[in-house]
């Protein structure tokens, strides 16, 4: 089956549509909405690399977000680094952590891996609580003078938005590349049957470690962006377990292991969240709804929306990837 060029263009258009909207309207409100959507999309698309392509359910995705946020924040606020370099280091720190722990914990499979990733998150939170350079339990705050170098707080909000937009586009390119590359074929074979994959010559340990590392790099960048514009960072905000869970819901909702699925899932889930948060009756149970949603997806459409479409209508496989 020849793959249509739309399999690449559709996911790109989804991200472009969300990202360009506030650039056209130039409204702060639209920019903040798009920021939330793009952040969700970036978290989901990066989690998809380890969860969707490789088949390892990680509840620790937010640990990379928090660590990247902390490292970048520290470098900008305390060490006076330029933001772009600090952000890059945030991503590198997150990727390095994934690389180091991946070699150990990726030997575990299924529920055992999932449990350990929760442990990693809690351990990191406990570590930061007691790590004085990062401010311990009170965290760090940004001196507003830092923003002057970037043209003031308003300009920072736009600059960080451009960075996030660029990262979301990069993620589409990266996930499309993975899905259509030999590396990706190796990952998919691990997801389907790890032992059979290794017998066929896939270096499973190495492939998994790289997938995990790549998957961790992007939330590191996103965390750096988020906390830089947030002007403060503390352990409780940096490592919320529910963000990991919501990321899983977004990936599963849209379709794990597809390129466009996590984008659709991320946007769809955030849209639902806004609906719940603004509803006086439901606003206090929005996480419970997310949990129930995950349950329903796993039970009835484990392949997610895009996966379901691909299975139900095989003709869509040409352009839905």
């Amino acid at each position, binding site marked *: 089956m020849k793959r249509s060029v739309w399999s690449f263009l559709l996911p790109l258009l989804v991200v472009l549509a969300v990202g360009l909207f506030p650039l056209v309207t130039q409204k702060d409100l639209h920019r903040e909405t798009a920021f939330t959507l793009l952040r969700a999309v970036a978290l989901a698309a990066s989690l998809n690399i380890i969860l969707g392509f490789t088949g390892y359910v990680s509840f620790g995705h937010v640990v990379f977000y928090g660590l990247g946020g902390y490292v970048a924040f520290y470098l900008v606020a305390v060490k006076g680094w330029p933001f772009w370099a600090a952000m890059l280091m945030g991503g590198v720190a997150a990727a390095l952590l994934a690389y180091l722990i991946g070699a150990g914990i990726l030997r575990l499979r299924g529920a055992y891996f999932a449990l350990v990733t929760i442990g990693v998150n809690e351990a990191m939170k406990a570590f930061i609580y007691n790590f004085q350079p990062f401010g311990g339990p009170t965290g760090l705050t940004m001196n507003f003078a830092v923003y002057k170098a970037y043209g003031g707080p308003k300009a920072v909000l736009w600059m960080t938005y451009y960075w996030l937009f660029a990262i979301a586009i990069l993620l589409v390119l990266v996930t499309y590349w993975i899905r259509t590359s*030999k590396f990706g074929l190796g990952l998919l074979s691990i997801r389907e049957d790890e032992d059979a994959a290794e017998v066929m*010559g896939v270096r499973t340990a190495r492939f998994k470690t790289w997938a995990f590392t790549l998957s961790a790099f992007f939330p590191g960048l996103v965390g750096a962006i988020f906390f830089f514009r947030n002007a403060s960072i503390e352990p409780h905000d940096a490592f919320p377990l529910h963000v990991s869970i919501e990321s899983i819901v977004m990936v599963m909702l849209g379709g794990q292991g597809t390129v466009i699925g996590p984008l659709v899932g991320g946007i769809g889930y955030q849209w639902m969240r806004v609906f719940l948060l603004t509803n006086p009756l439901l606003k206090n149970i929005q996480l419970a709804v997310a949990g129930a949603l995950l349950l329903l997806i796993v039970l009835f459409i484990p392949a997610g929306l895009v996966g379901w479409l691909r299975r139900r209508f095989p003709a869509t496989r040409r352009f839905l990837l």
Partner: protein
Amino acid sequence: MNVLLRTENVVKRFGGLVAVNQVSFELYEGEILGLIGPNGAGKTTLFNCINGIYRPEEGRIFFRDTDITGWRPWRLAHMGMARTFQIVRPLAELTVRENVMVGAAFGEKQMPLRQAAKIADEVLEFLGLAPRADQLAGSLNVAQKKRLELARALAAQPRLLLLDEVLAGLNPTEVDEMVETIRRIRERGITILMIEHVMRAIMNLSDRILVLNFGELIAEGTPEEIAQNEEVIRAYLGDPKLAQRFALEE
């Protein structure tokens, strides 16, 4: 003739059970070597040792004159060893073509995807699976899944092919087709070590046969020799009358 694979006193234990006990044999390039024995004799365990899934407790295994004892399966795949599984293991959510591409892309030749896709289509054509190439592997029936196992292994263009009961679960027509396919694979110059319970087939195909019983190698020889070996008849077939019938069938 060159020795492609050699085992020396291989021992594999599971707790107190000795699944493979002091097994030594040689496999020559270009031959089909059959491996038979009653259920639980240790045939698949021996395969798993050769193929790196298990590390034997004792003994050594040589492949292409290299000591490969304890090597991981992917390393052996890169050296030109391929296998099929007794219980089929399709990559269910991938298409049939993608399944076969994995074999080609990660085998000894480490082909780029484009070339792997070409090889996959050739192999699928060879095994009669070409019309199913774009189907998900999970949707195939048992006979087709068996062929898919074989296709994946073949796409790697291996030097040594380990076949673990590729005929099990097939109806007589399918068995005949598969036997013919295995012959044609050998004609391509691929050396084969095969476990099989379908006697008629293995007696027909094999140049030599090894017999395992309770983890030990109890006989080795041509199919004719094995068919008449007293110990094999006793240990493997139990009932001598059954053996006569089985000899007549030949």
